[in-house]
């Protein structure tokens, strides 16, 4: 069995996520390929998808252009594991507001029942790193890199909270969907990518 994992390659941390996922596969001893994907055709063949950090309006609008947004939504609804990082988590959410500008009117996948605030920790220069604890998925310590990060103020009953920082929710899970406000691909620690690869493996074998 070989896993076919994709990183949405419209804009953002594409190469970094490919490298982290390849390292995770290697450390776990699981066969698989990781590729940047842009087209509906490529996305339709995936076993798992990472929507990387970047700028969510850009990613959303440009994936509307070639209808890949629709394919992504259908695949996730049919159980494909997806990992949304920062902008990727924004893409997955139902309601988005910006801390400064308010309503964003951006294209969303509308899959995670969360209330999300963009630029929640301030502007680019207020970016920071902090230790994060995700005990429920056996990652007690993780170096969270927050770059103009969003946060979640409220979650629906079917959404599990994985981590909080500063009383704000910064990592969530709902069945096949994971979202984090921080960037695990920017650290050497691949434990979250490993967790995601295992999720893909489980969904493919079940």
């Amino acid at each position, binding site marked *: 069995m070989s896993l076919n994992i994709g990183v949405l390659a419209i804009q953002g941390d594409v190469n970094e996520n490919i490298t982290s996922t390849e390292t995770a596969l290697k450390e776990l001893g699981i066969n698989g390929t990781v590729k940047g994907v842009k087209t509906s055709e490529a996305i339709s063949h995936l076993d798992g998808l990472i929507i990387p950090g970047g700028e969510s309006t850009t990613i959303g609008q*440009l994936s509307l252009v070639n209808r890949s947004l629709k394919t992504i939504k259908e695949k996730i609804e049919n159980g494909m594991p997806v990992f949304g990082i920062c902008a990727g988590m924004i893409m997955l959410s139902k309601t988005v507001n910006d801390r400064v500008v308010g309503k964003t009117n951006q294209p969303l996948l509308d899959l995670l029942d969360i209330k999300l605030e963009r630029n929640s920790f301030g502007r680019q220069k207020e970016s920071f790193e902090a230790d994060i604890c995700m005990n429920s998925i056996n990652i007690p310590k993780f170096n969270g890199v927050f770059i103009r990060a969003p946060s979640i103020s409220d979650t629906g009953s079917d959404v599990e909270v994985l981590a909080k920082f500063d009383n704000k929710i910064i990592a969530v899970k709902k069945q096949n969907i994971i979202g984090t406000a921080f960037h695990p691909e920017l650290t050497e620690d691949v434990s979250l990518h490993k967790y995601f690869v295992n999720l893909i493996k489980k969904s493919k074998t079940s």
Partner: protein
Amino acid sequence: MSESLRRIEEGAAMIRTKGEPGTGNVAEAVTHIKKVNDELRLIKAIYDSGDNQDLVRIAREFKVSYDIVEETAKLGRLPVVNFAAGGIATPADAAYLMSLGCDGIFVGSGIFNASDAKERARAIVLATTFWNESEKVKEAQKMIDERQSMLGLDVKTLELRMQERGSSA
């Protein structure tokens, strides 16, 4: 490339290879990125051959640390993102530069001096994002009127070229 590595060592988080700005002529930008690519291929080949002494020689020649030469050689690309600029006026220009390995495109007068700025900006974004899908590039190219593109100035007839500015001072 030596110039880029010196800037990166000073702390630059991105590099912009500059062609000849304001001309609507992408030839200089293409020449520059091809030159950087040639040098990258050269040091990658040296790295793969295991000849550290030659990398040390290059580090000295470039006036940068050995570490940054080694990292670049190992990656086979610049260690930070590289945007192409200078003379880009059409979606096809943008897609061509992306195909040469640029991480992004920067367009100034090519859009702002065009009468169809809005549509042209949209088309260049599309061609840059989907540069490796020829159908999409063609579609983007059709969104603009080629006759309204900036007329490419001949770089040879310019009084002072961008790449020469500041170097004699």
